[in-house]
């Protein structure tokens, strides 16, 4: 199949509010290839978060389609004409949120095992072993029994990342993962993401961290008013911006 390396194909999606009065997304078409680290940048309100949240249908697009691993997940029906089970596809897309969204009533270990056990049916012992390995990878194995409230922001976000990884996703979506962190904690989270990128994980990252975009990303997308205005390698975007909008944006965020 010629599209085999295309993990996600976004085809002309639109997201309108108030009967089109507000156009959060206004016709976005883009492919995410396997192994890509795609960084989406833009002003707040440019639609970058909406685009990311559309990928796993946390936002349902008003129009257009999203093909994930060959399946049109925006369609109500699957290939066999049955009702499409979005949960099945979401298992393959990990997501990390700005505000971590750890489950406060569960320990760190339970946070990480609840979905593997209850959704995938993995035996508890196995799920816990895997969770401990992941926690160890981000240096938090000793906090497995703690509750989220006992962790710092940076620790919470590292847990949120490995919680998503525990489902063994094919792609990881990051929605401004460092925006709610104190400055001194941004580094530890970006570090984890960088290491993750080095393992070959496909990642789509909405961020204001231009350093990360430049260093780790292999593709950068600049969004403006619900459209992709410019797309290219970090070098092209940051060193040779074409549109005045992007030039203006960069002059404000780069020092």
């Amino acid at each position, binding site marked *: 199949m010629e599209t085999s390396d295309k993990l996600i194909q976004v085809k002309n999606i639109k997201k309108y509010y108030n009967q089109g009065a507000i156009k959060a997304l206004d016709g976005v078409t883009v492919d995410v290839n396997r192994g890509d680290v795609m960084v989406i940048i833009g002003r707040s309100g440019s639609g970058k978060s909406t685009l990311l949240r559309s990928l796993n249908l946390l936002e349902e697009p008003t129009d257009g389609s999203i093909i994930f691993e060959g399946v049109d997940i925006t369609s109500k029906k699957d290939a066999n004409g049955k009702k499409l089970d979005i949960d099945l596809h979401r298992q393959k897309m990990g997501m990390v949120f700005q505000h971590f969204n750890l489950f406060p009533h569960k320990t760190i270990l339970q946070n990480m095992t609840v979905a593997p056990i209850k959704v995938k049916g993995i035996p508890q012992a196995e799920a816990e072993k895997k969770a401990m390995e992941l926690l160890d990878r981000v240096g938090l194995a000793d906090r497995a029994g703690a509750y989220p*409230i006992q962790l710092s922001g940076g620790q919470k976000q590292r847990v949120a990342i490995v919680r998503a990884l525990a*489902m063994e996703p094919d792609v990881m*979506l990051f929605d401004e993962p460092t925006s709610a962190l104190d400055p001194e904690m941004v580094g530890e989270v970006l570090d984890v993401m960088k290491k993750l990128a080095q393992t070959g994980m496909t990642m789509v990252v909405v961020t204001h961290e231009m350093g990360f975009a430049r260093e780790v990303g292999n593709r950068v997308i600049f969004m403006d008013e619900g459209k992709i205005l410019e797309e290219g390698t970090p070098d092209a975007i940051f060193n040779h911006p074409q549109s005045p909008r992007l030039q203006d944006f960069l002059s404000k965020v780069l020092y």
Partner: protein
Amino acid sequence: MNFAVIGQNIVKLWLKYWDKFLITGMEYTLSLAALTVFFGAIIGSMIALMRMSKIPPLRWIAAVYTELIRGTPMLLQLYLFYFALPQLIPFLNRKQYLCVAIALICNSAAYVSEIIRSGIQAVDIGQTEAARSLGMSKSLTMTEIILPQAVKNILPALCNEFIMITKDTSLASTFFIGDLMTQVLLVKGATYLTFEPLVIAAAIYFVVTFILSKLVALLERRMRRGDIR
């Protein structure tokens, strides 16, 4: 009539009828309140789920029910159920206690459904998003993630509803079903004293609800000690 006489009468009444007030009366009052809140919570949960449902007719039915119950006086509802139910359901003929209980339950269910709905909706939307993004189904998200957190919002409010209902059961004395207020009426009939039995009943209501509300406050404090996000 002066304070000394009233005081003496209260003591006399208390000594003679204390078991009627404290045992018989409170037994009916508290059992009715417990019954009401228990079944009110079950039916209220169902109404709350209907109100948050994706199917519009279910939402409408639940909304109309809640608004009707909240928009009419409880005493009127009691009359309605007391007189209408036995006509509609022969089984309930001459079962006054049951009719009153059903009326209270239907009333409480409406209020409880709002308590539960707001308790669930008060849980951060990010929790749902995180759970769904992990591939958890809607129902699994509800039972594993949302409800355990919502309980912290719901339980104290539910206990307060129990306190309210404990007081509201006094309305049921209209039908002489044996609660504390009924005992007041009975004692009044037997002794021709009105003021004194009322004072005794007021004291009992107050002590019971005061203790209950202190317990709820304690419960609330313990729950808040737990976790936020």
